[in-house]
């Protein structure tokens, strides 16, 4: 499913003394079956933008079109049902989307709601719980009596159980342990590659942008200040620095080596790329010495 956003503005509590402008003149396109990373500082408007994608927020002015559903300030909530079915949304804080009595019921909610029998829905839930690494011992517990990372996993499982076509992920790995983080990012990547889900990821982890995304949008103070590809964005450390954004760890590390005189033609984005380049340089060295 593709997304087209045109001149979108959003003002919180519009028309009150507390009105607060969060998005200004945002226009962008997200093609079907792409993996988009949205990056930017605290408060730059990333979550506000995401919440438009399933109609949780409606533009104050301007519009967005998700496949054939156009959403403007006038769109009625019931016109959004079809859209919401296809857009899976993992919120920044997982508690915000948990509500059932047990973990299993929580995950089974969407499949049941979309017409699966109780039994089928439960089977899907058990499968999803396994997929996100939840231990069996928590399945009958209340989702609110879990650790932070376990809640996160339940929220993700519940969204996957919807079988969405677009996956909207707002810092989905915050609170996960490193192993869980990696497994979850690899799983999203598989869904993207094998089942062709369109993925939109908000993250502060430049490593994830370098490793997974094919499209990057940079937000600053409610505006889109760059719309590009990872290799492109990370080839300009000066620009990133000026906007207080970081580099992937590998690129930053390689830049330090470069400063000391190690010759890189282009700065690598991933560990494997860097290790391969360094190994080549060292083997050349070794060969030179031996010969």
């Amino acid at each position, binding site marked *: 499913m593709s997304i087209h956003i045109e001149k979108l503005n959003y003002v919180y509590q519009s028309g009150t003394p507390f009105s607060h402008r969060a998005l200004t003149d945002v226009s962008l396109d997200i093609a079907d079956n792409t993996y988009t990373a949205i990056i930017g500082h605290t408060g730059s408007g990333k979550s506000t933008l995401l919440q438009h994608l399933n109609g949780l927020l409606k533009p104050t002015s301007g519009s967005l079109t998700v496949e054939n559903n156009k959403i403007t300030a006038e769109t009625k909530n019931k016109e959004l049902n079809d859209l919401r079915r296809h857009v899976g949304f993992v919120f920044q804080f997982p508690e915000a989307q948990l509500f059932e009595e047990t973990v299993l019921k929580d995950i089974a909610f969407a499949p049941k709601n979309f017409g699966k029998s109780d039994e089928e829905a439960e089977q899907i839930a058990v499968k999803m719980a396994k997929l996100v690494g939840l*231990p069996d011992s928590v399945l009958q517990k209340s989702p609110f009596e879990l*650790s*932070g990372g376990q809640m996160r996993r339940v929220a993700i499982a519940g969204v996957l159980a919807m079988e969405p076509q677009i996956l909207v992920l707002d810092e989905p790995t915050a609170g996960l342990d490193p192993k869980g983080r990696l497994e979850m990012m690899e799983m999203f990547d598989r869904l993207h590659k094998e089942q062709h889900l369109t993925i939109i990821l908000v993250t502060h982890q430049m490593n994830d942008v370098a490793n997974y995304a094919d499209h990057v949008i940079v937000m600053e103070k409610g505006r889109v200040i760059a719309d590009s590809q990872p290799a492109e964005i990370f080839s300009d450390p000066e620009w990133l620095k000026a906007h207080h954004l970081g580099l992937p760890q590998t690129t930053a590390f390689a830049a330090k080596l470069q400063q000391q005189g190690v010759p890189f033609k282009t700065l690598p984005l991933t560990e494997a790329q860097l290790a391969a380049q360094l190994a080549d340089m060292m083997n050349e060295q070794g060969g030179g010495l031996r010969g």
Partner: protein
Amino acid sequence: MSGIIDIKDLCFRYSQENEELDLSHIDLHVNEGEWLAVIGHNGSGKSTLAKAIDGLIAPEAGEIYIDGEKLTDQSLWNIRKKIGMVFQNPDNQFVGADVEGDVAFGLENQGIEREEMHARVKEALEVVGMQDFAQHEPVRLSGGQKQRVAIAGVLALRPKIVIFDESTSMLDPEGRMQIISLIRQLNKKEGFTVLSITHDIDEASLADRVIVVDDGKIIDDSLPQDLFQKGNQLIEIGLDVPYPQRLKGELAQRGIDLPQEYMDEGSLVNWLCRSILKN
């Protein structure tokens, strides 16, 4: 020597029906002024340990001493004044109608006089970079802004012990490092004790000491450099390996011979430069 936190054989379970203990025979001694990082996989018991120290849950066995005083129903209120805790989800701790009021709330409760209170609120909001949002409603902030305000609320109280439960997990890397280094400076200058629960290996590497929690037990208690040398063993218990260690692994796979000992970023950069640019 008595520490600021002393835990002896602490056991806890959330429900009598649980066969396994959620905290199992915990012994922990923390010195005043120490910065202790607490790491471990999801569900290992880190937040539960923090809640026990703050007297929010009652142990089934064992004892907790805070600043030399035993934690009991009677001493609870006195002890809590010494502890400031930032919860994993900041929404669970906002009480004020606006950011300023929220940060001031705990101070009002402690009977701090107005002038002093204003000064402390202002200072705390500046440390976390939220002075421009003083009049905003805490629940109507972005994720990272909420975390900043929650941290300010605890800093303003100037407690003897600060517990951060993944309190910077939603900050951008630059903002996170700024806040952490500011708190680190305060910790060195004012001598309060920090317990920082984190999944961020870089943050943990700044600590004086790191404990690893697994299945409700403390399974490791080391200096950061000693812990991170364990490489793949860390991954097995669900932890990350610091970047230089990971890169060393990738290089080793490609047949490059590297020194065995733990190398931080600077020493790995130096070593690589020497090997590549040796003529």
